C-alpha cells in the first residue's frame, strides 16, 4: 500500500464506512433542518408581528447566531452546557447546535418569504372573517413556503457541508470517518477524496432539484 497517493484498493475497502458516515451526515442534516424549520418559523413570525419585544428577541437571536462561527456554537453546546449543569449526549448536542444555527438562517428566509406574499392576501383573508392566525396558516404561510422552497433547499445543502464541524465533538459523520481512516492508514488522499465525493453525491442532486424548483416557481408567479 503506497502512502501519500490515491489507492484504489483501499478506496474500495473503505467505501462502506464512508457510505455509513454519509448516512450519519444526512441524518444530522435532515433532523437539524426540520428543527431549524420549526425554530425559524417561530422566530421569522416573531420578526414581523407588531410586538417590539418579540421583534427584539428575534433580531438578537438571528444576529448572535449569524455573527458567530458555527464551530464555536457547537463547542459551547458540547463543552459549555455540561459546566452549567446540563449534560447531553454528543448526538443530541450536535443536533441542538446545528438546529439553533440553521434556525437563525431559516428565520430570515421565512421572514423574507412572508414579506414576499402581497399584503392583499392577508387582507382578503381577514376580510372574510379569518383570524390573524388562520390567515397566516391557511393563506400566507403556504404561499411563503412555496416561494422560499429554493432558499430552504440551499440552506439544507449548506447544512450538509457545515455538519462536518460535528467531527470535533466525536460524532462519526462523514468527515470524522474519513479522518479516522487517515489516522489508521496514514493515507490522506484516498479517504479525503472519498469524503469529498460523498459530499458531492449528496449536494449535487439537491442543487439540481433546487434549480428545478426555482424555475418552476419562476414560471408560476403571476397572480
Amino acid at each position: 500500500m503506497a502512502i501519500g497517493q490515491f489507492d484504489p484498493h483501499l478506496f474500495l475497502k473503505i467505501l462502506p464506512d464512508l457510505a455509513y458516515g454519509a448516512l450519519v451526515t444526512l441524518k444530522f442534516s435532515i433532523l437539524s433542518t426540520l428543527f431549524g424549520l420549526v425554530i425559524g418559523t417561530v422566530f421569522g413570525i416573531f420578526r414581523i408581528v407588531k410586538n417590539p419585544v418579540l421583534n427584539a428577541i428575534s433580531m438578537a437571536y438571528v444576529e448572535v447566531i449569524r455573527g458567530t462561527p458555527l464551530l464555536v456554537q457547537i463547542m459551547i453546546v458540547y463543552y459549555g452546557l455540561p459546566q452549567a449543569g446540563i449534560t447531553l449526549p454528543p448526538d443530541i448536542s450536535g443536533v441542538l447546535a446545528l438546529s439553533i444555527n440553521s434556525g437563525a438562517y431559516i428565520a430570515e428566509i421565512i421572514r423574507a418569504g412572508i414579506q414576499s406574499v402581497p399584503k392583499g392576501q392577508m387582507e382578503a383573508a381577514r376580510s372574510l372573517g379569518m383570524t390573524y392566525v388562520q390567515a397566516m396558516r391557511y393563506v400566507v404561510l403556504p404561499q411563503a413556503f412555496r416561494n422560499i422552497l429554493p432558499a430552504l433547499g440551499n440552506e439544507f445543502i449548506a447544512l450538509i457541508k457545515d455538519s462536518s464541524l460535528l467531527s470535533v465533538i466525536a460524532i462519526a459523520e462523514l468527515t470524522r470517518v474519513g479522518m479516522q481512516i487517515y489516522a489508521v492508514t496514514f493515507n490522506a488522499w484516498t479517504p479525503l477524496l472519498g469524503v469529498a465525493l460523498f459530499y458531492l453525491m449528496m449536494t449535487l442532486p439537491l442543487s439540481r432539484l433546487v434549480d428545478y424548483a426555482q424555475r418552476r416557481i419562476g414560471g408560476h408567479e403571476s397572480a
Partner: protein
Amino acid sequence: MSLLEIIDLHKKFGNLHVLKGINMEVDRGEVVVIIGPSGSGKSTLLRCINRLEEPTKGKVILDGVEITDPKVDINKIRQRIGIVFQQFNLFSHLTALENITLPLRVVKKIPKEEAERIAMRFLKKVGLEDKASHYPHQLSGGQQQRVAIARALAMNPEVMLFDEVTSALDPELVKEVLDVMRQLARDGMTMIVVTHEMGFAREVGDRVIFMDKGKIVEEGTPEEIFTNPKHERTRKFLSMIL
C-alpha cells in the same frame, strides 16, 4: 332602521386627515355609489366599515350593533360584510373552488362536501362553474374578479362593499364584472360601491354620494347628482370625467 349607519367617522394617517367626519346611512337592499376624485377618502371609508382600517374616531353601526366597539368580535362581524378589492386578491395557491371553500370551512366550519356545493352554486352565479379547478393565474382579470365576488357572496353577507373593482381590468373585461354586480343589485343585495364607472352609478345606484377631501360634498339620486348637481365641486368633477 337602516342596516348600516356611520356616525362622524374620522380617519387620520399620521398628520394626514383622510376622513373628516362622515355621516351616512344605508338601508337594506339599497345600492349606494360613492364617487369622487382620487385621494378623496372613498376607499378608506369603505375599509373603515369592516375595520380593515381602524377609524380614528366615530362609529359604524351594523343592524344595531356598534362594530367600532373594541369589545366586539370583528371576525364575526366581517362575515356579515363582504368586500371585493381592486386587485382581486384571490389566494394564488388555491383553485377558484378552493378560494371559496377555504373561508367557508375555516371560518364557518362547514364540512368539505357542503362547502363545495355552496362554492359551485356561487361559481355558477357568476358564470364560472367550468373554471372551478383553475388557479387564479390561469384566469383573466375579469374572471378572477368574478371569483372574488363569488367568494365574498358565499359567506352570505348582509352588505357588500366594492372598492373600485373594475379599475385594474382591461376595458373589454369590465362589462362581465359589472353585469354580475347589476344582477346582484337586482337580487336585492345591499351594496356600497366605490367606482369610476359613471354609467353603472347612474343605472344601478339608488343613491349617489360625491366625496371630496375627506367629506361628503353632496348626495342624492343619480338623476339629481348627474343632471343637476348643487355644488360647484361636484359639477367640476363631473365635467372633467363625463
